[in-house]
């Protein structure tokens, strides 16, 4: 009986993604089911549709920027918290993970009104800021774990031998955290790339990320082109997930 429930649940979980990928290969202009012939026609359509190509470029740029900035800032902050253990460190950590408590919709509304008041509506800067705030909780948790795994004695040894704190950080700690940094970066990239709700609320027609572009396209019509684009998005996401899994990152990131 438990087995039956599990089989059904796995189907329910995987079905939407599988269906999108499967449907994207249909040779016909509408979805005639089941799809048994396979064609790359709609992939070619997707690639030649400037709206999607631009949006992909934007999503990529945005995710890369947000991830780099987040990882850099969070690494420094995590270093400060882990190595110095300052009073109020717990409060700071709670502050950094607070965005998790604010739903994407509420934050989207807040950012919408905020960037408008500052005249930053439809600017990449505002969007980067929002995405950074959204992924900081994950980065800070993950990098804290990474830093704790580096024994403090190694840094003391370097400092006794004459290096400054910053020098030690760059020459000793940073290389040892390489794997954790890459994992955090990939994870932030993935989350930013997949971010939908907040982005929809705070951007207009001039600044559409790929998920938002798909959303707007779907509001008009549902056709194999959008299925093809979505399938590509899924494949990129899955590739990132696979990379994360290889690096052993997922367990660490999702455990409390």
């Amino acid at each position: 009986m438990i087995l039956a429930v599990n089989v059904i649940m796995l189907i329910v979980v995987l079905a939407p993604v599988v269906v999108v990928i499967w449907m994207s290969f249909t040779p016909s202009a509408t979805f005639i089911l089941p799809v048994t012939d396979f064609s790359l026609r709609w992939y070619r359509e997707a690639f030649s549709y400037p709206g999607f190509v631009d949006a992909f470029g934007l999503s990529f740029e945005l995710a890369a920027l947000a991830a780099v900035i987040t990882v850099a800032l969070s690494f420094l902050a995590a270093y400060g918290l882990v190595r110095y253990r300052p009073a109020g460190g717990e409060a700071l950590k709670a502050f950094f993970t607070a965005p998790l408590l604010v739903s994407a919709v509420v934050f989207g509304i807040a950012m919408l009104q905020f960037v408008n008041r500052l005249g930053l509506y439809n600017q990449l800067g505002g969007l980067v800021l929002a995405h950074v705030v959204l992924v900081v909780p994950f980065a800070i948790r993950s990098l804290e774990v990474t830093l704790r795994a580096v024994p403090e004695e190694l840094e003391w040894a370097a400092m006794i031998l004459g290096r400054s704190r910053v020098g030690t950080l760059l020459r000793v700690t940073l290389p040892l955290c390489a794997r954790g940094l890459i994992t955090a970066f990939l994870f932030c990239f993935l989350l930013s790339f997949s971010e939908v709700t907040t982005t929809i609320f705070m951007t207009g027609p001039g600044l559409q990320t790929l998920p938002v572009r798909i959303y707007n396209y779907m509001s008009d019509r549902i056709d194999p082109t959008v299925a093809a684009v979505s399938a590509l998005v899924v494949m990129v996401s899955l590739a990132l997930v696979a990379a994360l899994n290889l690096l052993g990152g997922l367990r660490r990131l999702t455990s409390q």
Partner: protein
Amino acid sequence: MLARRIGAPALFVAPLVLVMVVGFVWPLVGVLVNSLHPNTPQGIDAGHWTVGNYARLADPFYGEILLRTLRISVAVTAITGMLAYPVALFASRLSARAQSLFLLAYISPWLINTVVKALGWTLLLRTNGMVNTLLRGLDVIAAPLKLMLNETGVIIALIPGHFMFVLLPLWVALSGLDPALSWAAGTLGARPSAVFWRVVFPITLPAFVAGLVINFIMNMTVFAIPVFLGGARNMVASMLAYQINLVQLDWPLGGALAVALLAFTLTLVWAGQRGAALLAAGKGLQP
């Protein structure tokens, strides 16, 4: 040297704090402030203060939407609750490698953007979608089922999305459970189902409840899936927020809605954590 030491952690932490204050605190405060100003056709009247926006939220029109949102969230969370234990129990008996893959499968919906999932569910649940085609092909039904553009479709599509927020803590709790407890219960005469209900379930209950609370809160604020699977006639809170903020451009009201949603979810989080802690303490367990 000491002075520099006191300053050092601040230097490391300051950049992120600055970004968070500018990008997180300031916008939220701004929304709160906006919600307390009246809205005029010329824009926000920053000279006056009012709680009228909140009063407007009490309107039965909004009440109906909130009720629907609650109804859907409760349904999704309830179904998730019934499915969580069978899945977690199954997962805990798998080999280590199979477990990683298994959990990966359940985590992946959260990592794939929800618009793509909405597309997938649309292709599955619409009138000439996969499910109906399959059921009609197998002669199980004669006419297609209406699985979309109603609350049913939204509920079905929302189940896998936040399932992992209940599954992961429950799986951790089950894995951490001392096997000797089940063995002790067994040797004392409890058959396998009794071992579950009298030992495993009570001990893992706090983690389960905590996960359900998180799951409920996340279901309250979903956007893309209700838009496509529910449609304009089945509005939920997030769609209402979109309407007010981006269509009507009534930011004071939109701000009030945002603040109200935030207050509601934060209260739930707090209550959920207190509840789980009390449950655990009452049973002599670690919360």
